[in-house]
């Protein structure tokens, strides 16, 4: 029993970045009615910007940079800001003009964006390996370090080993997701998003500024993707953890979490991401090295019986 508890808790703690990435995908799905394949790539841009600010020329010896807490914070902020703006620009320049395309057509456009960013990254940042340090290393001597140390020792008493990085990622993600859910429920933007999600045309007739809502949703999704990308790439803390393609597998995981939870609610995919993470940990123990593969296949079987996901609601389609 203790073993399963351990697996569950560490899965829950590790699920944080995945939950952010999944939520970003669903946010765009609900407002633009397509699955955004460029999500991971937009996050990758943020990770590259962050590495560039910390260490403009990558170290040939393979050392990871050791920025101070403030430096790192500024770099991450800049990365998130760039993704935020980039994502908004994609909506304003491209998606605003192709609103009435069918969903597959929109998907194809996002795939085009993936290709563009894939090609541009080496031109701007060169082909050498880049890397991000872990969050924990430079925060230990500030008050935040002591704050998180309390929680870590709490988990230690339960017999679970949690790193500082995982702890910070989890706390930050939980905070962000809570803020967004509160915003969805109580702010004007949230009301607009929900109205747009249920019917875009009617919402715009009722005076909802759907253009602004969609652009903001894209921007926020871009920012969330950026945070997820930075958390995931820096998690390893080793040299060369930021590459052009590092987000693809995370993106696939996020998509499968969203399918598992169902695209039709906002909370479903987040729970889906947590379930995915926990099961990934569990299967990793039993089916090594095929853990993730078995998990993907399991989700496909689940979807075969529940096509709308675990928390999906059936939406009647009018002809």
């Amino acid at each position, binding site marked *: 029993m203790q073993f399963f508890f351990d697996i569950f808790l560490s899965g829950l703690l590790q699920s944080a970045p995945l939950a952010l990435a999944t939520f970003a995908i669903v946010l765009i799905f609900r407002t633009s009615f*397509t*699955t955004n*394949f460029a999500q991971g790539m937009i996050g990758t841009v943020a990770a590259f910007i962050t590495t560039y600010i910390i260490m403009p020329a990558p170290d040939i010896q393979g050392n990871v940079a050791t920025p101070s807490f403030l430096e790192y914070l500024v770099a991450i902020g800049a990365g998130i800001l760039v993704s935020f703006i980039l994502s908004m620009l994609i909506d304003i320049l*491209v998606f605003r*003009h*192709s609103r009435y*395309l*069918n*969903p*597959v*057509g929109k*998907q*194809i*456009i996002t*795939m*085009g*964006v*993936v*290709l*563009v*960013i*894939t*090609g*541009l*990254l*080496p*031109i701007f940042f*060169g*082909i050498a390996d880049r890397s991000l340090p872990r969050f924990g290393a430079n925060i230990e001597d500030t008050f935040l370090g002591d704050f998180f140390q309390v929680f870590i020792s709490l988990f230690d008493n339960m017999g679970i080993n949690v790193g500082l990085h995982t702890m910070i990622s989890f706390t930050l993600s939980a905070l962000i997701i809570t803020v967004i859910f509160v915003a969805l429920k109580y702010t004007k933007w949230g009301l607009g998003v929900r109205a747009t999600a249920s019917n875009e045309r009617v919402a715009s007739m009722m005076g909802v500024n759907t253009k602004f809502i969609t652009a903001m949703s894209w921007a926020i999704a871009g920012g969330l993707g950026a945070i997820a990308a930075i958390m995931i790439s820096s998690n390893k803390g080793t040299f060369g953890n930021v590459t052009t*393609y590092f987000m*693809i*597998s995370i*993106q*696939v995981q996020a*998509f*499968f979490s969203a*399918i598992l939870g169902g695209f039709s609610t906002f909370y479903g995919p987040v729970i889906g991401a947590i379930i995915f993470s926990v099961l990934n940990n569990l299967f990793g123990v039993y089916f090594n*090295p*095929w853990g*993730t*593969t078995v998990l*993907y*296949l399991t989700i*496909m079987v689940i*979807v*075969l019986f529940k*096509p*709308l996901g675990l928390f999906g609601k059936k939406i009647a*389609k009018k*002809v």
Partner: protein
Amino acid sequence: MDKIKHFIQLKLKNPLYQFLLFGVLLLLLPILSPFMSVTTTDALAKTLIYFIVALGFSLLIGYGGLASLGTSSFIAIGTFVAYAGINEFELPFLLTILLGVFIALIFGLIFGIVSLRIEGMYLAIVTLGLSEIMIELFKNFDRFTGGVSGTTSRAIEMFGLRLTSNETLIIVVVFVVLAMVLTYNLINSPFGRALLSIKNNDSAAQAMGISVIKYRLIAFIVSTVYAVLGGILYMSYVKFSMGSTWGLAISLNILAAVVVGGSKSIWGVLLGTFMIFGMDLILFKNIDFLSDSKFANLSFVISGLLIILVTMFYPNGLAGLINELKYKIKRLRLKHQAGKDHE
């Protein structure tokens, strides 16, 4: 003489004869190859192989209205089936192809059923997951895939002879023509019409008694078979394949080729394939300024931009654009004629 000319013109109106003529023209390639550099011949051969894959993909996207991101893993499966067939089991080439088709059917069926059961849009996600699974599989099944270092195949044997690459190129050309003819016939069969009606309005198609999932599934399986065939031909021509090279980028480039060229026209797909795959090999590799390794993926930027622009403004692709121009010229000419007649 006029009679013969007229006869030829009449026959060339039939697309099937056009395909045959194209095949005959392509057969000049092996003859001309001593005069071309090896890289150019290789590039053309690879482009032709990708053209076969793109044809299958055009059925899926142009007629089925579905996008898939698993194309490159299916090509990879084809290459490794070819490796196993030629080197491990020492099967005849045609039997290897049959084996490949059989495996393609199984994979297409499994992944098609799962993803199409949800909704057409999810095919891209599930096939993206498939390609992730495949990369893991290729890494671990190193008997057939060579793991991370890849495999090198022997040349294929046919009629008791070991074929040179020029002779393999002839086989590729034969398959290109076969694929074109097959695609043309599929499009103009009840299957093609049913697919088109589903793409235009699936509710209406369903009301007319067309089973949406059945036809979409068949379209997906057919495109899988084309991709695996492409993989087998790739292995028999290039003779080398490595699991990790078959990633997302190749799938996306094939998508770009089909979308940019025009997913509903066989000639459009050809044009698109040559643009996307030819651009990199013929154009960029010969410009000094762009030969720096950081510009290696510059062609991705262009094909990505082309995908976005074409999907937004010209959903019928280059082929549609050319048709539109033709129509406009014809109308201008008719107007001119009418003006003259009026006088």
